[in-house]
């Protein structure tokens, strides 16, 4: 069942379901490796309520507001 990224557990494998409403934002996320269907992990919570995601070898910081918009599925 999809949950908002900000409510997803840390260190679990997540799969992005929905990359946000704006096309530009979707593309920016996709370029950074966050495409719908991509598996990734949340590494830690960051200051200001955001999250840091590990996508392959990359670390991407995601702000609190965006973390509330993105939908993910928790795989394990």
């Amino acid at each position: 069942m999809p949950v908002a990224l900000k409510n997803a557990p840390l260190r679990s494998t997540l799969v992005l379901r929905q990359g946000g409403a704006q096309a530009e934002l979707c593309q920016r996320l996709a370029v950074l490796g966050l495409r719908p269907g991509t598996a990734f992990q949340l590494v830690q919570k960051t200051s200001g309520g955001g999250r840091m995601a590990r996508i392959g070898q990359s670390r991407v910081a995601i702000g609190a507001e965006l973390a509330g918009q993105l939908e993910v599925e928790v795989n394990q």
Partner: protein
Amino acid sequence: MSERRTALPDAAIRESADSVSLGAVCHCGGVLNESAGADAPVVALVGAPNTGKSTLFNALTGARVTMGNWPGTTVEVSRGVWRTTSATAVCDCAECDCAEKEWKLDITLVDLPGAYSLDPHSPDEALTRDLLLQVPGDGRPDLCVVLADSSRLSHSLYLVSQLREHALKIVVALTMNDIAARRDVKVDVVALERALGVPVVAIDPRQRKGLGPLAEAVRSGLAAPLPDARPVGADPDDPDGLDEERFCWIAEAVEAGTDGHGAQHPSFSDRIDRWALAPFLGPVIFLALMWLVFQITTTVAAPMQDFLDELFTGPITDGTLALFSAVGLSGSWVEGLVVRGLIAGVGMLLTFVPLMTLMFILLAILEDSGYMARAAVVVDRMMRAIGLPGKAFLPLIVGFGCNVPAISATRILPDSRQRVLTALLVPFTACTARLTVFVMVGVTFFGQYAGTAVFVMYLVSIHLVVLCGFLLRRTLWRDMPYDPLVIDLPPYQRPTLRLTASVTWLRLSGFLQTAGGIIVATVCGVWLLQSIPVTSDAAFGAVDTADSAYGVVAQAITPVFGPTGFASWETTSTMVVGFVAKEAVISAWAQTYALDEPAEGEAGDLGARVFADFNESSGGHPYPAALAFMVFLLAYTPCVATLASQWREIGAKWTLFGVVMQLAAAYVLAVAVFQVGRLFW
């Protein structure tokens, strides 16, 4: 051979873009390429942020750089000369007899703003796209060097995939190869080259390794015919389909060009980020670092500034006066121009050098280490309230030390609109020069509560930044799109001495070139106004301040300050001086009253005269008038050096807008403080 050698070099490189039949081109004409002039080939550096683009630019161009805003925009583009020497002659001459020293080619290198893709999300990215694709053929670069981070290869290749859809000459430069190796990612350059269809070179711009092979690849690329555009197997009108095709192409290239999926255990950067980005500790670490920057730029630079100040006002001025006396020109206007204009102006400029140098060194270290991206994350939410990203916090903090380097520090912001907005807000931060005046006025009027009065000024300063940022964001920058925080965090790296020195020199020389002339010209202008007699028969250069054009101007504008409670020409004239430098306000006051400057932290006789003046001009309400004066001093133009810095960073139009905005804010606030204050005090 010789005819072709002199006729071809630069022009042929451009012609080769349209002429496949030309084949390889002789670049042996060393004389014609001695400097990268209008005909020199143009190579653009493009790539995603944090791929080492600017580092490579500095490494390739050294000090042969000009920096400035792109015409019609506030987007900064650096241009430099890249002097390449080939190990072999890159030509198809039948009987090439070029000596090795002639195998030189000067290239105009353009460092375009960082971009993840050719679909612009900011004016900076739009400029990158326009210069690469939209301008007519002759205006485009002859070749693009696309930087790609080996440790995060797929992120960097989206731009390559889009560029490859056009008939452009491309060389891919792989950076961060050491980090990729530490993460057990092996890049097969030959296989990657085959998959991408363009030359690929592994480089390390921080250590200046691989630059020779890069030069070879670029020279070969310039000489080669235009490559065919990559055929795209998707409908050009279907953006989703296009993206899908590009990502598949990228995935295939990464699969073919890399070996190993990388280590999954926490990296060194992960371990640091556990603390540096933590919800509570992250801001504490950030504030501690900012405090350190603030301390170093103010306290460490202060003795050096004092030394330079004393050198100019002491031995250099005394020596020059003695020289004029010896040639019989003592007291002449020439002496005034040289001593109070040129020497004072150059001296003022040079006192900023230690401060700016330290500031640029610290900025370079923070940027090179990778911490700046973390700082942006830590304070993002707070800064978002005024429509700015977290990174904007740094220039604002630095502004409390000195506004001049703070304006230059806005360069760390990726978006030109953010740079303009931050540069307009920096002057509202209370710099240390204003602090000296606050202390003097505070001691004069509020005695033991002087500290509280000064503290209130700092609170007013913070509120002014927030309020004006809020208003500007919701008026002029209303259409600035919501830009959620998504940052690709680069791995931490140890800053290198060479890179730090190179970046510092680049920025410092840019500041001195642009701001130097403005500062010296303005100081000379004030001297000129003070030298022109208007209401007396005194000779030019020997007139009392009150009778000079300067005094007359001050007296003319004094009535405007009636509602502020400090409408006496002796006070308003200090504000004219304060426009040049706030450090000069107290000495100007002392000069006007013909009194000695008081010791720091004391009011002295000057304090008594100022108090009497304020008492008279305010109709018996000196305390709210003093507060109004402090608020005005806080909010209006900090100094001419700040203006020069703004001019350099955001252009004349926005600088003028800032001056008007600050004067309006200062006046409205001063009137409000006095008019409300006089009701109670």
